[in-house]
């Protein structure tokens, strides 16, 4: 669905009017196309405090990034190594580095702050309000160090809200550098167009470089549920573009759309009701017999039955919880019991910002999508023991058939209620999933990455 408002304010006349009236001006976001360079211009590197990371410049140069901009050059990215911040004074280095070059940051620019997790706890925590909190570990850490490390989160989130013209700011917690290159490639490129104001923690894990960064999933088999249309179809397309053979699954009744998707991407169609008692057995038998196993499982199938809780019928409650949560729990449990997923296995599941923040009329949906967040965290240690990862992606407002049914005013307001002032596209969600499914993201697990343009609620 076209965002007519965004089109208007990006026209010559519309731009002037919107500027005069102070209206929001959503930018046309830079999105990845195969063969695009990581950045359309040079990146400026800086540090706050003594770095604890391997040198970033050679890594970025090898990835084709120009890291030596001239003093007046327009910049495509600002990369701040804040891994060494140890005292409150070190934080001043963030302002010192960013203040001047921010004025030179181009459209769809990138600010990436690299820090470390507080030792006393995990920065990625879920509070009842939906924001991130520190959960203290029993050992605790250095209070000052942990305080200033946590401060990076506040800086990045606020900066993301200040940036305009499609620029984003994200925080990478590089506790283990194995996945750092992969994370930087994702965040700098157009693949992360709608990821804004988010922390991503890089832990230990096997994160081999792909043979070809253009096709990181080459030779891998992926399965995507709910793939006949919308976000599921976009996920299948992006995984196939990245080199995977994709098995697209959906309800038998959705077979026509499913066949179209399969034929478009050179994949195979599998009619499957994920809520059937034998769904896991059917799926795994198919994957074993036809493909010799599976490397990537994407739980995308999901439904909504929106009603205020007082009006919600038992079957509307049950259907959403069954499709969105129970089926995923059963299939993922069965995956651990079956001998079907190979080395470096990846599970990525669809949560929602509603799962973090809640939403009026979506108690059942929010229950299922918050449940997914719990599932991802609870499975992560078991997955790690096998060298697999499990992560979630939580889309915000995404332009699909689902939002066509929203009233016009509600839709237009909702579109502006995020830092990028627009709805995301299905491909934005798909890009995040493809990255989490890639070999290089082996250090990322147990996390739910929001693809929401930094929603004002639930981000």
């Amino acid at each position, binding site marked *: 669905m076209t965002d007519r408002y965004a089109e208007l304010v990006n026209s010559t006349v519309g731009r002037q009017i919107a500027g005069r009236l102070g209206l929001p001006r959503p930018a046309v976001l830079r999105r990845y196309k195969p063969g695009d360079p990581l950045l359309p211009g040079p990146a400026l590197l800086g540090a706050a405090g003594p770095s604890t990371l391997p040198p970033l410049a050679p890594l970025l140069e090898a990835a084709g990034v120009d890291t030596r901009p001239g003093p007046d050059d327009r910049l495509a990215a600002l990369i701040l190594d804040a891994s060494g911040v140890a005292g409150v004074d070190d934080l001043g280095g963030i302002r010192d580095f960013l203040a001047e070059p921010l004025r030179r940051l181009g459209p769809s620019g990138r600010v990436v702050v690299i820090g470390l997790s507080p030792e006393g706890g995990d920065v990625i925590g879920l509070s009842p309000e939906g924001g991130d909190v520190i959960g203290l570990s029993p050992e605790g850490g250095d209070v000052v160090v942990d305080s200033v490390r946590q401060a990076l989160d506040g800086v990045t989130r606020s900066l993301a809200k200040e940036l305009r013209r499609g620029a984003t700011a994200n925080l990478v917690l590089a506790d283990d550098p194995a996945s750092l290159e992969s994370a930087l490639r994702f965040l700098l490129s157009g693949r992360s167009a709608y990821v804004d104001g988010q922390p991503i923690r890089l832990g230990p894990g096997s994160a081999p470089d792909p043979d070809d960064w253009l096709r990181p999933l080459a030779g891998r088999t992926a399965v995507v549920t709910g793939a006949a249309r919308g976000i599921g179809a976009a996920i299948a397309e992006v995984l196939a573009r990245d080199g995977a053979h994709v098995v697209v699954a959906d309800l*038998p009744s959705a077979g026509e759309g499913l066949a179209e998707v399969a034929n478009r991407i050179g994949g195979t169609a599998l009619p499957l009701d994920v809520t059937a008692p034998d769904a896991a057995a059917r799926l795994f038998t198919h994957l074993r017999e036809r493909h010799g196993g599976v490397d990537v499982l994407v739980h995308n199938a999901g439904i909504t039955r929106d009603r205020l809780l007082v009006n919600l019928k038992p079957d509307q409650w049950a259907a959403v919880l069954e499709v969105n949560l129970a089926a995923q729990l059963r299939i993922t449990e069965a995956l651990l019991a079956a001998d079907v997923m190979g080395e470096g296995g990846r599970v990525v599941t669809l949560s929602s910002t509603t799962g973090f923040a809640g939403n009026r009329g979506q108690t059942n949906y929010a229950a299922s999508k918050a449940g997914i967040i719990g599932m991802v965290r609870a499975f992560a240690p078991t997955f790690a023991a096998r060298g697999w990862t499990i992560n979630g992606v939580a889309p915000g407002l995404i332009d699909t058939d689902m939002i066509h049914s929203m009233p016009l005013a509600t839709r237009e307001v909702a579109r502006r209620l995020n830092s990028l002032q627009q709805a995301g596209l299905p491909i934005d969600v798909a890009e995040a999933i493809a990255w989490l499914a890639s070999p290089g993201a082996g250090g990322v697990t147990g996390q739910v990455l929001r693809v929401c343009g930094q929603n004002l609620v639930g981000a």
Partner: protein
Amino acid sequence: MTTTRRAAIIGANRTPFARANGPFAQASNQDLLTAALDGLAARFGLQGERLGEVAAGAVLKHSRDFNLTREAVLGSPLSAATPAYDVGQACATGLETTALVANKIALGQLESGVAGGVDTASDAPIAVSEDLRHLLLDANRARSPLERAKLVARVRPGLLKPSIPRNSEPRTGLSMGEHQALTTEAWGIAREAQDELAVASHHNLAAAYERGFFDDLLTPFLKLTKDQNLRSDTSLEKLAELRPVFGAGEHRTMTAGNSTPLTDGASTVLLGSDEWAAERRLPVLAHFVDAETAAVDYVHGDPKDDGLLMAPVYAMPRLLARNGLALGDFDFYEIHEAFASTVLTTLAAWEDADFCRRRLGLPDALGTIDRSRLNVNGSSLAAGHPFAATGGRIVATLAKLLHEKGSGRGLISICAAGGQGIVAILEAA
């Protein structure tokens, strides 16, 4: 090449079958056949694959569709380097194409192929009357504008009546139903027995859908997700209320409920050598063993002995003898339900010792079929019957039944216009 091998039935795909002038009314034969190939390619990852060949056909066919199957291939995800040809043997087309492709695979001429068929009774070709056609051809040959104008001036309103294709035999003028009504009466097939068979067909097909049997045999098309003709709640009482529509006199027994309706749909079956399947990690559901065709002189013969739809009765003993098998040696029987009474006259003929001695040259009756093994997942009375697509539907159903059982043999019998018929044997892989 002196050795032969058995062709593997790897899988299949069809559209749901729609009642004529229903959801597929605007779809052409080419649209339907392409849709069936699309679903097949998606199921087995055949995008860009060069198959040995695709053989298919349609009974009701526009003259412009002289290369129907090839055009469907060009519109499908298959490699454009996949050759194709059209086959026509009326309602036997779908099974005849299967036999053709299977035989080429058996001989080593092909490693893979698709057999299929399609028909639409909605988008049927309409021709101009013969007189008008001759006149138009003369006008086309005319040398001068004046000559042409003279010819055109001869057009009269009566010439403009279109010639709509009819489900009738050119040599007798009788419709298939009228022919079968003669045979039904000659064999004394009761109305109740026909209705019972129809009810079983609907209930069996409904149960097969219920357990997901068709999930990997069918791809929805134009929002239709299952065979439109299926009435899972039909009953003997409901069918008993219908008025007979074929035949004459007091003994009319054939109704719309125990006859197949005009139907639109397409079916495809993927065949290959075992090696070809194994290289692609594709399953082998069953092997195609053998087939036999027959024809009867329904124009001059007696409607009991040489009824229009009785040719499979004659083909069967020849097929069984060649394979050293008896009629009872099968786990599943698929007898195409053109009419319920066609199935019942076929069974009656094989059970009739006098007929078998007199007409089939057998020492005794050919035998009896265990009715619990007959059309266990329903057949044409419930699914509908898009003429050339029925063979592919039946081959797919039987192959999957054999695969589920894991052993055994199945027998197919399909009657066709022109007094023809084809029978075939499949064996579990």
